[in-house]
């Protein structure tokens, strides 16, 4: 079974890329990973279409865990999940965790073959 994929969604492309660098340092290429940041005009913000694309790039049959920073990143991610075909929709979750720490810990968990539920639980313990 493939490892759970990780998607990082920040308002800032630099934050998203930097968080992704930290994830890669921990888990190398063992986990499908994609990041996105910035609004459709290239400013700070998030883009529904770019998030939908990132989910595809990090796709894993084991599921995809998304890590977000602020409001719009979460709402746009939720809309991107709802736009997926019905059989894929249940395999993608937005984790309620700090974006950097959540992505690193979630990816570390994923790299050991953990389920999507376990990846999410581990990341969300950071916010507990």
């Amino acid at each position, binding site marked *: 079974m493939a490892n759970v994929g990780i998607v990082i969604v920040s308002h800032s492309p630099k934050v998203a890329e930097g968080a992704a660098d930290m994830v890669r340092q921990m888990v190398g290429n063992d986990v499908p990973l994609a990041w996105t940041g910035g*609004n*459709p*005009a290239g*400013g*700070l*913000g*998030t*883009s*529904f*279409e770019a998030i939908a694309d990132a989910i595809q790039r990090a796709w894993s049959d084991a599921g995809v865990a998304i890590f977000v920073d*602020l*409001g*719009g990143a979460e*709402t*746009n991610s*939720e*809309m991107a999940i709802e736009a997926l075909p019905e059989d894929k929709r249940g395999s993608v979750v937005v984790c309620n965790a700090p974006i950097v720490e959540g992505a690193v810990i979630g990816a570390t968990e994923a790299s050991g073959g953990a389920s999507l539920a376990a990846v999410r639980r581990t990341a969300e313990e950071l916010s507990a």
Partner: protein
Amino acid sequence: MTVEHGDTTSPSAVIARLDAERKRRLVAAIANSVIAHVDELTALDSAIGDGDHGHNMKRGFEAVLQDQEALSGMSLPDLAKAVGTKLVTKVGGASGPLYGTLFLALAKELPDEPSRTDAVRAFAAAIGAVKARGKSDAGQKTMLDVLVPAHQAFAAGEDLAAIKDTAARAAAATVPMKAMRGRASFLGDRSIGHMDPGARSSSLMIAALCDELGDG
């Protein structure tokens, strides 16, 4: 122009039959109102948010305006769906998915020629979808503080001028509120004393809609 006005207070009457030109004017009125207020929305959002609401909304509604001819040829539900999709893909801030959700839910609920009852029900469902998307409700200093009372006025059978007035007063009533959702909530008590930018953009859109439907 083939505009028929039903008795707008009768629940079963068709509110207004909208031909293509009327639909185009409705879309343009809402879009132009938001675009014309970009600086005000930016100033409001700079006070309690990240300052991007005006330009995000402007970008979304400029894209809508570009499509106004194509939109005017669509059925009402298809038009709402196309506008919602455009806002989701173009706006980028938190308001994109929230307003997008509003229009996409309207698209699901509206028949081609809605009666007042149909429109009241569709608007209620759309507000419910926005509440779910934003995990919010009225009283938290958001667009819902305008949408909910405007809907109540609409459902109570008030005329377009009264609904517009309700929306404007509701937006002003967000000034003393403390933000509980979105980035403004980070400010806590410091969010008090500023009008919520989402409430303002909602009242602008409702005012444009009421004006346009009212003087056909």
